[in-house]
């Protein structure tokens, strides 16, 4: 049987710069695959190419054995691919409930409030007025109610208090345990490695480590090496700021 998400030889360019370079990646169902790398390594770019936000320059992406490399975004979503973008992309003028309704009909919203009971109280509040933590829960819940098979999570911990992040990670684990495949991009490497199964480290668009989370956790020098490689000032692609 083919793996849930399979990426082969993927190249992605932005404004003529090659940002992701010949990446191979397999993310099975029921597992958390952790994707690490320094700022600007190309993690967001990789996820965006998988969900179709930006086109791939070369290589292929397949979901359950079906090529989705040039499929339209909406169609990929309807095939079971959910992408929680970096930066808490709520629809600010819509309420919490309306945000969820974008992804699923009213009868299917239950799981969202089971997962994050605190959202229930904020049901009819405009999502632009929610706290950062609540907004992050909302975008995660919004992806879940569409009952995805594969979940791409881009720095869901960004800008959140440590206690909230510590609550969020077990939720990710539970989602994987329920059979969903998760590709998790995370700044807090240790927290992610604690709940993850396998891990990849990206440095300047290339995969420099691919193995188990356990292995990466037990050899901090490996991790540090990867991050340092990314911080090499020489011939680094132009930092345009913001991702």
């Amino acid at each position: 049987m083919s793996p849930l998400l399979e990426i082969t030889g993927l190249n992605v360019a932005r404004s003529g710069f090659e940002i992701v370079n010949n990446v191979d990646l397999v993310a099975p169902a029921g597992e958390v695959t952790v994707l690490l790398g320094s700022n600007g390594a190309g993690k967001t770019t990789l996820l965006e190419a998988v969900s179709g936000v930006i086109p791939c320059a070369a290589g292929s992406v397949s979901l359950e054995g079906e090529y989705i490399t040039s499929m339209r975004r909406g169609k990929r979503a309807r095939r079971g691919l959910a992408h929680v973008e970096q930066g808490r992309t709520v629809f600010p003028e819509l309420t919490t409930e309306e945000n969820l309704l974008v992804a699923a009909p009213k009868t299917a919203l239950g799981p969202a409030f089971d997962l994050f009971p605190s959202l229930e109280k904020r049901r009819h509040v405009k999502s632009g007025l929610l706290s950062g933590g609540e907004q992050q829960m909302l975008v995660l819940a919004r992806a879940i109610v569409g009952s995805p098979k594969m979940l791409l999570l881009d720095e869901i911990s960004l800008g959140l208090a440590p206690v909230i992040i510590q609550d969020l990670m077990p939720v990710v684990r539970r989602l994987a345990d329920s059979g969903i495949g998760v590709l998790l991009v995370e700044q807090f490497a240790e927290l992610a490695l604690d709940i993850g199964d396998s891990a990849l480290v990206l440095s300047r668009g290339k995969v420099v480590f691919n193995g188990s989370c356990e292995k990466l956790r037990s050899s901090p020098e490996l991790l540090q090496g990867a991050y340092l490689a990314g911080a090499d000032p020489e011939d680094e692609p132009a930092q345009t700021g913001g991702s």
Partner: protein
Amino acid sequence: MLDSALSGLPSGGAYALVGVAVVLLYRLAGVMSIAVSVFGAFGAFVMVASFDRGLSLGLAVPLGIVAGAVLSAAMGLVMAWLFPDSDAITRSVVTIGMAITLLAVSSRLFGDTPRSFPPLFPGSSFTVSGVVVTATNVLAVVLAIVLAGALWLLLHSTRIGVRMMAMSSRPVSAELLGVPLGLYTVAVWATGGAVATIAPILAAPTRQADFTSLSLLVVPGLAAALLGAFRSFTLTVLAGLGIGVLEALAVRWEAISTYRNALPFLVILVVLMWAQRAEVWDDAR
């Protein structure tokens, strides 16, 4: 006095409807669409042409509305296919190009001479305390309110409406959640085209009705949309009806009646100046 105020209602209703179409396309398709009233004029001319060829009014009117909607939907299709990720300026320029092309094509097709449009309810009127109210006057007000109300309800209390608002707020994020952007864009344009076709059909019997003047209904329509801050259907409808009534009243004063067509411009100018001074427009946007 009241008589002439009421005589402005059919035009006012038309301005309101064009304004509603403009607001709809601005909010949901992210386009400042000058073209929409050209589609409307086209639909209205399809209606009058088929009526002149012997089709009954009851069939000619829906046919015209469908024609306007289809033309507008085609514009939506062009937008969804060729300019899905373009910014508002690019898309607005495309619609202006489309409007100019269609104006040229239509003047060949329908000629530049004014046509006489059939009134929707010939002759029916009643008198309320000495003031004559025609069925067309009532229809203009009712249609503007009912259509705007229906659109408001669609947006605020159906799942499709919520998804459409999400699409206008963050198209990429909405699409990642499975919202069919192309389909919805075409639907929004079709609806805008239909509403914008009802406007000239309503107003044409009471005013100069050549293709260009009907297309220019977009000017008072824009004024009404502006007064609604390009958001509020309620304010847009009130503003449209108000401009129509003001225009009709202006006929009574010899000194200004020749300039009354400039009234919408004046409204636009005053609103923009006031908005700039008061800076109240930021949160409306």
